[in-house]
């Protein structure tokens, strides 16, 4: 079942989705939601997936409606990541075209991208792909008219009000600004996706050479992804 809150990307809607997910998780912990399989938060809704052999959407609905509202989701343990990014050049091939279309110098685009601390709104599209926002108003552009058939792994990209890092090589239509050497998906980690809904993310500019060195260190196990978590 899907509980819809709206059909735009809006912080207020995201908070409502997060609050409901928290209510559902609490009911589950209390043993009041047998048959709950999982919940999936998105920009517009919370999907509540249940096993029809054990329960039914109408039972779940009643249970949730009777639950005391938590109002706003409390996020006591928000994680804050600082991820290195090599901006521009071969790592960010769309900065020049973006500069022409929005009338800002490439250096200014980079500054405006990394000076904001983003929130992870939801994951999806690809395993570990985190939709983050909001980017500065001056940087907002629709997706490329011609999507790329191949966006390299680690690409830092923007489209409309969102930014993301591609965890895999894949097709994609977002504007590529840079390269992040920290793997966002590790299928040997206890939790394979680095980012989770609700996390905060900052980007820290590094040179292309530094990014390559970091990528090599991370691949060789000399550095861990968790090193990029800021102390809370």
């Amino acid at each position, binding site marked *: *079942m*899907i509980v*819809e809150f709206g*059909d*735009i*990307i809006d912080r207020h809607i995201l908070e409502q989705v997060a609050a409901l997910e928290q209510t559902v998780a609490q009911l589950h912990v209390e043993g009041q939601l047998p048959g709950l*399989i*999982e*919940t*999936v*938060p*998105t*920009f*517009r*809704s919370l*999907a509540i*997936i249940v096993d*029809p*052999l054990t329960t*039914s*959407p*109408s039972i779940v609905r009643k249970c949730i409606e009777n639950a005391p509202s938590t109002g706003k989701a409390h996020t006591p343990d928000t994680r804050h990541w600082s991820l290195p990014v090599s901006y521009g050049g071969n790592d960010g091939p769309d900065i020049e075209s973006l500069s022409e279309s929005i009338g800002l110098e490439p250096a200014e685009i980079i500054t405006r991208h990394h000076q904001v601390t983003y929130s992870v709104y*939801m*994951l*999806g*599209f*690809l*395993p*570990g*792909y985190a*939709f983050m926002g909001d980017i500065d108003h001056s940087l907002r552009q629709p997706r490329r008219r011609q999507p790329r058939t191949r966006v390299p792994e680690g690409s830092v990209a923007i489209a409309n009000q969102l930014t993301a890092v591609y965890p*895999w090589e894949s097709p994609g239509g977002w504007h590529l600004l840079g390269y992040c050497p920290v793997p966002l*998906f590790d*299928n040997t980690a206890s*939790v*394979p*996706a680095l980012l*989770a*809904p609700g996390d905060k993310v900052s980007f820290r500019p590094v040179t292309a050479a530094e990014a390559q060195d970091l990528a090599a260190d991370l691949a060789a196990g000399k550095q861990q992804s968790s090193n990029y978590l800021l102390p809370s």
Partner: protein
Amino acid sequence: MTTPFVEVEHGGLSCTIQDCGRRGLRRIGIPWAGALVPHWMSLANALVGNALDSPVLECFESGLTLKTGDTAVRIAVVGDADIWLEPLHDGPHTPTARSLPAWRSHQIPPDTRIRIRSSGAWRVTVLSISGIALQPHYGSAATYARAALGGLNGKPLQAGDKIPLANVDQAQTEKPDLQCTPHPEIAGSQVDTEPAAQQNQQETPPVIDLRAVPGPQEDAFTTAGLTCFFSCDFILTEEADRMGARLQGPTIEHASKAARDIVTDAIIPGSVQVPGSGQPIAMLADAHTAGGYPKIATIISCDLPKLALCRSGQRFHFVSVDVDEAVNLARDAQQTLADILAGIVPVGDAYVDSAALFQQNLIGGIFDAQHVDWRDD
């Protein structure tokens, strides 16, 4: 003593190891994966004495060739498949090449090649191996190749792969093989079990009903669009894989141009998305977790295997059901599975009469009862 195994000689195209799939990770973008026809997985496992949710091999038209190592293994094939055995080496005791029926288990000698090809009405064949022993990856052995999860190294089966088995229990080996009556209704009661060759060429194949709950974005379509979806026939195209299947039919009308793209929403197996083209895309086991096309309906879980099993060209008709009906239908389907599992009997039991054997042949579509050795063990 080395771990017993079955080796893959040819993996065919996209033959994967699947089980019930992994749950709880959609919020970080990881699909469930898992068997396209879960009841066939349970049945195949029951026939070889495995836990019902053990991993099985799921293969498509291109088939699969395996060879046993130095231990005998028990396998079962569920589906509409040709199965051949041939000895890898000549020896005084090795039988000559022979074919075997599906819908039962078989004790396969060491050093034997097993070829499996799906042969009839259905696209998917399921093979279970007694004692298959794979480590779960995030709670499941289901292969999801796009993120290298599950299976053997996260990939479809490839030549040279060794599928590990638990040490074979001697008592288990001595148990008789098991069989069940083929139960096409596991895939959906409307599936016609007549072999294609016996059908009149002029006759259009029967339309299969897919029951679906409208929404969650039914308001993204005009009344005419919704009516069209639930009244017209849609044909399965060749663009179908474990992730989803594209259907072709009359254009389903969106309420507005803006309604063709929505803010990203959750997707599950069964979701029917309608992009700007107006042609539906039904999502299957590997469905990604979120997407931006409006969803006109969700196919109920017990009807989804019908879509996964059929070949391109099959016509479907969507039937609207409400949520409560969908829940009841899911429970009915589970009861049907329980009944079928309860009807599994040892091969050669008096219970199985010749009429049943002929029925089995008919459904297999290729076996000549006179040449199949029903009591080869």
